[in-house]
Structure formats: C-alpha cells, structure tokens
C-alpha cells in the first residue's frame, strides 16, 4: 500500500527560472502565465534577446534619471526636452505622467516644454496637493519666461478637479492658462460615443 501511495515528484523549474518568472509577472500587462511564456521565450533566444535585454535593463537602470526641472525620464538632467533650444520655452504643458508626455511627443503637435505632475488630486486615494509636483510648477512659472500653461490632464473628475485647482493657483501669476478640449475623437462615430463625450462636444461646438 505504501508503494502505491508514493507519487512521483512533480518536476519544478529551477529557482533562477522561478525568480525570472516572478519578476516578469510584476510587469504591467503580465500575469503568471504570460510571464512564464516570456521567460521561456527569453531562455530560448538567449543570445539574440535575453543578453541584449539584460544589458539594456542594466544600462537604463544605471543611466536614466528623473529630470529635476520637469519630471521627465532621460539620461541627462535637465532632460533633452528642457535643454532643446528649438523648443518654445514660453509654453509649459502640464501632464500627469511621463507616459502622457511621450503621447504628446508622439503626436508631434506640441513644441513647448513640459511639467510632469506625478498624479492627480484624489479623495479616494488620499492624494493631496503636497503629494504632487505643484510647488516646482509654481516656481517655474514664477521664475519668468512662461506665457502660457497648458493643462493636459485627463477628462476625469479627478483630472479636472486638479485642473481647476491649478487654474486657481496660476490665476494670479500673469500667465494664460488653457486646457485641452474634450469631444469627438478623430475617426469617432457619434452613435459609439458615451453620453459625457457627446455632451462635452456639444458644449464646445464652434462655427464652421
């Protein structure tokens, strides 16, 4: 009977592979299953992908830092956006996150400077003004040379609450404060839009 109950031990991945899977599973968009697939893929393409990736990760960890002026991520501080002489230093675009800065850069539509807030005011998450990079924004505006601040914040209750808060703070600073328009996206069909977007689009209608 004792022999019948003895089961063969299940083969386990080595601790190194387990550690790799555990770390990969912490990345956004990854779960344990997709992390395992990625780990396997990396191990299969050790020379072509895994080694260069680990080198790139080490390089980035070593050299990328947060720009003390705007909050962007770059290898230099101040970052390449802040030091680019071709950019319009009189316009400052306030974004929540570096991902938003990258999105605006991808569009190629904006040629000014940025300021990354690092979040939005949130009663639910307990984010207060002092938790955000608001003091440094005010300092930049007060230092002079800025004529317009563009608030490129999310069209959410928290995003717009933050925008109004910043608008109040900047009201007496002698700069023009603008915010992004809300409405119908390019390629959007009306019957697929939510009520809120349609309402915002109607409110912001303009003559043709």
């Amino acid at each position, binding site marked *: 009977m004792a022999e019948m109950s003895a089961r063969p031990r299940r083969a386990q991945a080595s601790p190194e592979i387990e550690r790799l899977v555990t770390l990969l599973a912490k990345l956004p968009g990854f779960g344990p299953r997709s992390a395992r697939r990625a780990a396997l893929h990396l191990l299969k393409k050790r020379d072509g992908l895994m080694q260069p990736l680990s080198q790139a990760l080490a390089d980035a960890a070593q050299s990328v830092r947060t720009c003390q002026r705007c909050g962007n991520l770059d290898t230099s501080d101040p970052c390449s956006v802040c030091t680019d002489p071709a950019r319009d230093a009189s316009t400052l675009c306030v974004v929540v996150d570096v991902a938003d800065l990258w999105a605006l850069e991808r569009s190629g539509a904006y040629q000014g400077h940025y300021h990354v807030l690092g979040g939005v005011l949130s*009663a639910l998450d307990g984010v207060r003004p002092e938790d955000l990079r608001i003091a440094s924004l005010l300092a930049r505006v007060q230092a002079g040379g800025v004529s317009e601040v563009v608030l490129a914040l999310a069209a959410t*209750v928290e995003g717009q*609450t933050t925008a*109004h808060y910043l*608008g109040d703070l900047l009201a007496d600073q002698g700069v023009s404060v603008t915010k992004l328009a*809300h409405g119908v996206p390019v390629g959007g069909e009306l019957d697929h839009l*939510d*009520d*809120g977007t349609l309402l915002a689009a109607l409110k912001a209608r303009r003559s043709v």
Partner: protein
Amino acid sequence: MSGWAGRAIALGARRLGENDVILDVLSDAVGRASGLVYGGAGKRKRALVEPGSRLELAWRARLDEQLGFFEEIESRGAGPAHLMDDAAALAGLASMSALLLEVTAERQPCLGLFEASDLLLDAMGNYQNWPALYVRWEMGLLAEMGYGLDLSQCALTGSHDDLAWVSPRTGRAASREAGAPFADKLLVLPPFLLGGQNKPESGDIADGFALMGHFIDRELLSPVRKTMPEARARLIFALGKTGRL
C-alpha cells in the same frame, strides 16, 4: 447566486490589476455597495465608473458575504461630464462622494439619501442655487445617519417663530431672542434651512456649511477618527471665490 438590481450613483473606483476596478456606489436597493467591474479600467467602461455617474446596474455574487461583481451597467442620464467646466460643482460632487464613502455603512438601505443625492447631482449641473441644496443634503445625511437636527421649535421657549440659532451640543434650535445671551456659544441657523420659501442671502450658505460641518465632524467623523474630506474645503473655497457663500 444572490444579487440585486437597480439605480445607483458611482462614488469612486479603485483599480484592480490592469483592466478591472472595484466600484463603490450608492444604490436605491441596498445603500452603499461595492463590487468588481470586469474591464472597468478599459476604454468602454471607464466613463461609467467615474464618480457621479448615474447608473442602472445589477450586482451578483455566489454568496452575500462576497465582494461580488457589477454587470449590465448602463448610464441613466447626465453624469459628471456636465460638471467638468464648473470648479465648484466638481468640488461639490467630490465632497458628496467622499462624505458618502466616509460615513455611510455598506448594504444599509437608504432610499431617501439616494434620491436626495440623485436630485443634488441633477441640480449641480442645472441650477445656479444648488449650494443651498447641497447644505440641505448634508442636513439630510445627518438625519439619515441618526443625528438629525431638531429645527421644529425653540428648545428654550417652545416657540416656533424666529428661530436663529442651533445648540452645538444638542442640535436643537433656539429663537433669536432666547438664544441671544448665548450667541457666542451657539451656531447660526440660516433661514433657508427652515423652509424652501426662505431664499438664501449673502453669508447664509457659509453659515449652513459651518453648522453642518460641526455636526458631521462631531457625530460622524471624529468618533471613528476620521477627518473632514479635503474636497469639502475645496468646495467652500470654490463657492467663496465665485461669491456664492
């Protein structure tokens, strides 16, 4: 499988993983309730879980004690989008949501409070005098939580006329004359809280905020070591800035 369906107002959503959120709502069926919204952080549903969204939804769980999930979520009219351009209305919405999250108990039906909140949301986008309604809503919140103010008669004389003060200890009204000797200790009772026929005048809304703030803090927040939501201070500031206090 247990569950319920009905009308609700979204109060806030916390992200869970990449795509989902845990949504808090005030519902007509069971009061404040939480549940998972699959795909709530995605493009299609993100607008629905914004605070102030007015929803029709169903809650399902295998057992009543479980977190459960919301499904069949549909918008039922203007949500927070119509408040986005008004700093005071947005602060009012944030204050209302934060207070409901802080002081209401989960799964305690409060139909009156739900209807009042729904009405207030509607008013914020459409009526200029909504701050008076907001103060009355806070008075209703106190009453719903069991700490209603007694503004029916003077606690000192029994008179029903010229009520002008409220005792900060008992929450009972006092007439102008009887309360005058204790004026420095009493809270001002703005006339608009005594009936809809009294239109708020300059300073009345500020008095109403001070009155309700005192009792909300003393009866609902301090006993459980909570503080007044910052959004309420922002609301008062925004109203003061536009001369609506």
